[in-house]
């Protein structure tokens, strides 16, 4: 890949490597998408049969991934992209953690 276009450094306290966009668009996007799939099954409508939320969550997974991936590719401000992704990561990880601990049951 054209390294110059994808390897912008994020300055400041984050101190991320020059491959920041790779990390954001690759592993972090995938991780955030998986977490969002997990949490969306909690808030999506269950329907009368109680299965709609499960199907919707799995159907939405590739859509969520594609939206986040394209956002990271198109976003010029890498600090903002980093903030958005880590925000989504922590918010969804918190919900997953709470649901596993039985807080919603």
């Amino acid at each position: 890949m054209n390294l110059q276009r994808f390897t912008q450094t994020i300055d400041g306290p984050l101190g991320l490597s020059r491959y920041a966009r790779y990390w954001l668009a690759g592993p972090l996007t995938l991780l955030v998408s998986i977490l969002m799939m997990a949490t969306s099954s909690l808030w999506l409508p269950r329907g009368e049969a109680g299965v709609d939320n499960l199907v919707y969550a799995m159907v939405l997974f590739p859509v969520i991934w594609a939206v986040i991936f394209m956002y990271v590719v198109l976003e010029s401000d890498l600090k903002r992209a980093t903030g958005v992704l880590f925000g989504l990561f922590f918010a969804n990880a918190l919900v997953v953690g709470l649901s596993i601990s039985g807080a919603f049951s």
Partner: protein
Amino acid sequence: MIKLSRERTLRVLDVHGWSGVLLGLALYVVVFTGAIAVFADELGLWSVSGRDVQSPLTQSIDRHVRPLSGQVDERYLEDVNLFNNPAGELVVFFHTHETTPNGQIEDIGVRYRLDAKTGEVLARDEGYGKDLPDDPASALERFLVDLHVNLHAPDPWGLYLTGILGLVLLVSAISGIILHRHLIKDMFLSPRQSSRALKARDQHNLAATWSVPFSIILALTGAFFSFAISLGLPVIAMTAFGGDQEKMIETLIGVPEPGDETPHQLANLDTILAKSKSMTGTDPVFLSVIHWGRADAKALTFHWPHGGDINATQHQFDAASGEYLGSKPRIGTQPSTGNTLFNLISALHFGNFAGWFSKLIWLVLGLALCYVTLSGLQLWVIRREAEQQWQWMAKALSTVGYGLPFSLVTASIAFLFAQGLGWSSAWPAWGFLLGSAACVLVARRTSDLTSLNATFRQWLGWSLLSLPVLRTLSSGELWVFLLQAGNVWVILLDLTWIFLGLYYLRKEPRSVPSLTEAPAC
């Protein structure tokens, strides 16, 4: 038309190009095998030269199956599946569900293979479902489908891989839409002849523009099927079911709550299947009996889409009395939007909603997508014609482009040999590997791409022509016998191989001035 800054456009172009370069050939393998697998049932039928019994589940099977229930461990009566293999033999799997030491829920039980007419037991295997030996009659069909579904990689890694390829296809389609500045205009583009690069780009754009809707459909539905099983279910089980995967699967499948466990004679299976056929007007292709021999036993029949409906249907019966209980959604126990969505995804991915007609359209669209993938890679190579380090890719394009169909043909040849000699069902895989190895070897030894492509075309042509001959020799089934038995699909596929074989032998390969000709898909 989507306007982006130059910097963003270049980033999207990088994503579009590099996703293709890194995973395009693997994507081609999955899409090509998927396009062929649309006709997997018909190919399975062809591989065994048709069958005597066209619809085994509508035969008188109760008298064959009922005695077997007394020969298995009682716990395997919890769930019994009945279906037929390509040879028209009846497969009966008495099983229950157990959690394996590694935490996975697996089917475990006894599987019988019977002659559907006489009830003679042809094979009996016991163990975990995934460990049971492959059905020899299904070996070629299974090989093709597994290559498409998981590239023959172990679970769940194969599913992860094909799921990622689905995401790559999705992002290629989206980035392609962003990059095509004149999406509507490109639908009626006449490829420019002024230079090879322009011509290649126009051809790629033209095919890609028409393929975009199908690409997105295939990418979304394919990624769904790959990730739903391997990733979605375990992840959602953690949040929505407190980690209880069994409970989640029961919710999704819609397993009825345990009721009256009193022993009870099972209703006649032939009557249930006949009722199901009379209600739908089509033959059932699958029967499942839950709680066999109990008062709360239920039977479920499965029918492919019919009568203009794009959905496959399931019908539930009280298996103790034989009473019809109504249609049963594939997801959950009552109609839901989730079930409708699942049916829609299935219909769009498998393309079987209008019989052979929709399957044919899906095959053509799948092959068109192969062309888009290969022409995109060809474009990449043409643009780097002066860079020696990229010339290996032109050869790789030819080798994989022609090598995949050729290796599938050698897998079929190996299957026909193995079938004739009574060998193991692993032979399609060996045939595929031998075909692939031969392609790689000849590619390594040939420096001129024109002669390499000519060689591949000759191989493909002759191997395709050999298929009807080998099939006839291995089975002794001439066309006249096949016609009498109603096995028209076998004849149609024989004719297809002959037509394609002659096409590849007769068509003169284009002269290639440099190492940049891509194969036709």
